[in-house]
């Protein structure tokens, strides 16, 4: 915790600054992704600010998930996938061979489209990350981390009496918040969310959105969404992808009010996609 705070401070001194003057956390330069022969992502350049929510929007198959998975190198698990270009987090090249991917993923949490709790108890779900990273030395420390994470994820009041129950026995919305709790339990800097609400009803969605809004004060959050409304509600910046290219990126209000590109215009008004 101390260390990540130190690195963050150091990063803030030298980090590039986005157009709005926010410190950039994740910086991508000329990122290309290939699935075998298929060129799925083309020349993506983007600066993503810390302590804010950035939304990725775009039609299906345009490469949002692909780019998201580049940021925690989840694409490494796909044998056919090749990534070129440079992505830095706090000025550190995350594709540097000397960087341990496990260390990276501990700092870049991920929440998936479909809630995927481990088929273990609620407690174990949240405690798993801290355990393997040695974040807690004693049982009470571990309990403190689990409690804090569940509280941050807004799930504590609902599950505090049944921490021993299976995580898969929760409702879809609760499961997704459990996954968020699990992601923040390892105290990451960046949280990636790939359509976190697509499997949820409006009430659960509202809860998750509130949660994201609260988390923004402490984390760099990137969220992929198909809902313009959601992007408008939760994000400060929005990036629009189309056919593997990043078409435009900017403050959310501007993208939705005065898009510069015709394709963005068409997409947000519902003419394509």
């Amino acid at each position, binding site marked *: 915790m101390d260390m990540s705070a130190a690195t963050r401070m150091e990063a803030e001194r030298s980090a590039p600054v986005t157009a709005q003057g926010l410190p950039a956390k994740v910086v991508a330069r000329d990122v290309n992704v290939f699935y075998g022969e298929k060129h799925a992502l083309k020349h993506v350049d983007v600066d993503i600010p810390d302590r804010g929510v950035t939304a990725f929007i775009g039609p299906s198959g345009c490469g949002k998930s692909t780019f998201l998975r580049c940021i*925690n190198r*989840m694409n490494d*698990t796909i*044998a056919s996938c090749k990534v070129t270009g440079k992505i830095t987090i706090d000025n550190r090249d995350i594709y540097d061979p000397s960087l341990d991917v*496990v*260390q990276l*993923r*501990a*700092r870049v*949490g*991920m*929440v*998936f489209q*479909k809630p*995927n*709790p*481990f*088929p*273990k108890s609620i407690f174990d779900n949240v405690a*798993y*990350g801290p355990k*393997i*990273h040695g974040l807690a030395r004693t049982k009470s420390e571990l309990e403190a981390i689990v409690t804090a994470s569940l509280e941050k994820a807004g799930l504590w009041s609902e599950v505090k009496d049944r921490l021993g129950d299976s995580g898969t026995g929760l409702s879809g919305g609760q499961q997704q918040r459990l*996954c968020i709790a*699990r*992601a923040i*339990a*390892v105290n990451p800097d960046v949280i990636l969310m790939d359509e976190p609400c697509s499997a949820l009803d409006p009430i659960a969605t509202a809860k998750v959105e509130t949660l994201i809004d609260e988390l923004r004060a402490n984390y760099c959050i990137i969220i992929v969404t198909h809902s313009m409304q959601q992007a408008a509600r939760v994000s400060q910046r929005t990036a629009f992808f189309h056919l593997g290219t990043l078409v435009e990126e900017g403050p959310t209000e501007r993208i939705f009010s005065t898009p510069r590109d015709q394709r963005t215009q068409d997409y947000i008004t519902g003419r394509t996609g």
Partner: protein
Amino acid sequence: MTDLTVTSVPSRSVQFDSAEMTARVKRRYRSERRFKALGGGALLLTAVFVLAVLLDIAFKGLPAFTQHYLVLDVPVKAEIVDPKGARNPDDLRSADYFAVMREALTAAVPGIEGRVAKKKLTGLLSSGAGNDLRDRIAADPSLIGTTVKVPLLLSDGADLYLKGQQTAVSTIPGRGTATPSDTKGDITILASANDFADDLVAVKKTLAARIEDLQVRLQRAEARGESQASEAASLKEEIVALAARVDQPAVAENLDEKMPSLLVSINGGLVKLNTISNDSATGTVILPLNTIDEARPLDWSVVTYAKPESNRKTSDIEVAYLEKLKADGNVESRFNTIFFTHGDSREAEQAGILGSLVGSVLMLIVTLSLALPFGVLAAVYLEEFAPKNKFTNLIEININNLAAVPSIVFGLLGLAVFLNFFGLPRSAPLVGGLVLALMVLPTIIIAARASMKAVPPSIKEAALGVGASHQQAIFHHVLPLATPGIMTGTIIGMAHALGETAPLLMIGMLAFIVDVPQGLTDPATALPAQIYIWSDLPEQAFEAKTAAAIMVLLGVLLLMNGMAIWLRSKFERRW
């Protein structure tokens, strides 16, 4: 909107019972019925076959779980058992217990004379009959000089007879009086009321049946022509002679061993008849009579052993002894503990399943402790870590092929590698287990890979997402979730290994081994090998042993499957 549809579109109500629709529905119903009937029929047929097999095995095998004993008062005489009087345990163990048993037996069936008859009497006992007595005396020498009531193991033939698998015995009380001429030796019995007439008719009938048989043979011989002419002539003579006997209903007849045996129980003794006429019979005394007094009606009887003596293992004399011992209450049927506590033996009544059962268990322990870890680790490596290239592809294909290799090939491999090259001992469960481990390895690898593939990838991604290393993701999450499937595959493999005989053939485990193996390198055999060995033996008693051994094998299999189910449910609850 409703107005619009009503005005612009003609009514479109669905015609549920149009001819075309009904026909289609009927056709569908017919095909569904047909499918149901076929499925049900297949199920029924399978059930019938399985039931038939199980019932057959059960009926054949159940008698093997009991064993008959002679319970006699045995006087343990010191001068026979311990002539030195030193009460030395080693001497007591090697003493002649057969002599004391023989004494007890002659006391139970008194009046037997002649070497042959005496031999038949003692032959009822198993050669291991004295073991129990010996153990008791050796453990408690103070019994010497007293009379001990001990169960003496009967031989397999006697046991089979008492289990009712040899001949039916029927008794018809005499209507008139009967008078024996003597109490022992060859005697004549005179009956006042033609008591043997019915039996004589029956004898003549068997003769008539014999003529028919001979005629068939005669025809066959004649059809062959010259080469068999002499045989045809002798057959003809025989037929004529027999016909003469049949044609004279009142003339006395000789009985032979191809006819049902006739005996007379009279004055406390038993006489085996050799010739009968309507009112008299001659025969040999088997059990001596008390007197030569005239026996009143109903006090004596004609006893028939329905199966001809030549068609059964137990001779008339033995049947007579056993019937007497049974009537005196000296025979007892007990649960056959020997079957579960002894190794193999040439004597059916002393043969047990324990040796092969222990052999099988030792082998399975070796197999499991090698095949499971190797199989699972190989599966994990191939599924998750191996680079995808030509070499790993080749390995994969070979593993799949290996699962289909005939098991005898593994036996040959075992012979060549483990016995000849490494010089491991023959017939050892260690080698058997190694060979079987090779055999089930592909099964376990395939099952483990399949069940790991079946774990949703989202679980692995979730683990990677919170910063678990690849290995941690596999061992903390994927493997535990795949465990039930791996277990099922392992149990199937183990069951397969348990029932395998062919590879054991090559490494010398299909052998007659008396001792129960004490370790992994002791010579041993396995359950299926034991079943095969017993099924091949001519003694009838081994037939039941074979079926009983099959029951034990099936029992072990059921136990293994039950354990798998239990483990599975336990595992699934924890997760």
